[in-house]
């Protein structure tokens, strides 16, 4: 695909991020029993203030990594979105192994979040970074099982082929456990709600506790971008991506992405976050066997 795809991807990311902001405000207001209007108006004012704010730094930080971490995170979101096809044969990065590329993006997110927490040279961000590695790495395993499971009916590691394999039946029907498992992976990738081990409330913001001004705004924006990229990927792998009657493919993808975004926002605001040791036990003892069974079932169905 041509370079003309870049502005389109940027537009998609921006639109998705704006939608998440609105959904977050609405969900929060609804749960808190307050009108959503002031929340929303405040968010944008808030962001503008952040961008004009001052960058404050800590003692002896790893400045390069600290400043670059949000950029890396955003770049990974863009790379992840680039393998998502917007129509038949319309993906920016076309590889016979594009689903593995998405896996590499997931693995690199762990690295980037660790760097973001490690580089300020302060206790709370560092604890956030440790915790994220402890939960982020075990989450990779269910993620791989789920993605391989989705690749089985397509008999290909190419995301394009995975979409095409869903013409008859979406993977969410064929592999009912896949989407919920993948959503857990997404919550971890985007540091949200029940899987927010890097930027958690008990650490006063964890890996971003020392961020100020534009750096903080950038990090939050990158998290939103990753959320959009993840949702587009989930919609592609489990909800048939661009497939759908009447409407053009990109629009279908956008609608399905919005649906996944809503699920993610709901999970963020409705589910509690376990202490990290409990979560690690849960990941290894429950989630890993479940995802393995899921892969087994997906394989049997695909045969």
């Amino acid at each position: 695909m041509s370079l003309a795809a870049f502005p389109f991807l940027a537009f998609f990311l921006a639109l998705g991020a704006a939608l998440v902001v609105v959904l977050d405000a609405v969900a929060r207001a609804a749960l808190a029993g307050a009108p959503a209007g002031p929340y929303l108006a405040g968010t944008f004012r808030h962001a503008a203030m952040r961008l004009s704010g001052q960058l404050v730094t800590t003692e002896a930080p790893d400045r390069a990594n600290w400043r670059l971490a949000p950029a890396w995170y955003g770049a990974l979101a863009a790379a992840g979105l680039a393998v998502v096809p917007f129509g038949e044969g319309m993906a920016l990065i076309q590889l016979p192994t594009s689903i593995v590329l998405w896996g590499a993006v997931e693995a690199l997110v762990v690295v980037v979040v660790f760097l973001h927490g490690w580089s300020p040279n302060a206790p709370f961000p560092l604890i956030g970074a440790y915790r994220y590695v402890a939960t982020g790495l075990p989450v990779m395993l269910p993620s791989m099982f789920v993605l391989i499971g989705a690749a089985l009916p397509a008999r290909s590691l190419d995301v394009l082929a995975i979409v095409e394999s869903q013409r008859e039946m979406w993977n969410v029907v064929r592999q009912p456990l896949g989407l919920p498992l993948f959503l857990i992976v997404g919550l971890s990738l985007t540091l949200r709600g029940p899987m927010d081990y890097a930027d958690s409330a008990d650490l006063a913001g964890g890996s971003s506790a020392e961020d100020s001004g534009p750096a903080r705004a950038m990090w939050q924006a990158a998290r939103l971008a990753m959320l959009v990229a993840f949702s587009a990927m989930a919609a592609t792998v489990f909800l048939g991506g661009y497939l759908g009657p009447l409407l053009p493919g990109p629009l279908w993808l956008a609608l399905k992405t919005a649906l996944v975004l809503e699920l993610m926002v709901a999970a963020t605001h409705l589910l509690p976050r376990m202490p990290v040791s409990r979560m690690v036990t849960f990941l290894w003892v429950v989630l890993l066997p479940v995802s393995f069974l899921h892969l087994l079932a997906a394989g049997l169905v695909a045969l």
Partner: protein
Amino acid sequence: MTDALFTGLSALALYAGWRVFRVDSMVRASFWLMISFIAVGGIGLLLSAPYIGVATVFMMAVEMTVMVLFMVMFMMNPAGLNPMMMVHQHRFSIGVGVVAFAGMTAATLLTDLPSNPVAAGKAIVHDLGIELLGDSMLIFETAGVTLLATMVAAVILSARTGRFGDAVEGSVPPGLEPGGTPAGRVPEKSGGHHHGHGGHDHGSHGDGRSDHAHHHEGDGHDSGGHDHAGDKEKHA
């Protein structure tokens, strides 16, 4: 285009590989190593090996994250606050490195290399899959079982409790007869037990053990241990 990309990625792979042994922080060192691997993965893509190339990136990201955790846990100076140059037989090592490079390069240039490039349009990933679960299944499965065995062995080795008691106590196998001397070699009393790194002088200039931690020790009460440090930067 391909040549330019290849040159760039090669330069990155070599530069990053060199930086691994030149930066002051072990965390940075492992991430430089990761960058070197990612660059090689990129070259793999150029060499029309889409699976191996991407899988290298994936695997190395995970592997280096684990490595970094070990760095922060054990090693002196993970934050790079003190200069780090801990080497022995330095000149000899440089010599070996240079000789190895020169030898291999000479061999490469002097040999008449065969040429039989990958045909365009070959179903590479498909072929690999057929190979892995066909003719070479035994090799592939052996690799898998080896990995599993390694995992089990790694957990046993690094866990505190061993077959013959706690690792910290020094594991001693039971005697051949009840109450007799332990079977096998009797381990020496741990002569190397000097706490931390205190007793060593490695002859290198100014290595110090430090990490994030000491930056917060003795910090006064403040919200979340955010220290005063920021002010210094602001008002300097």
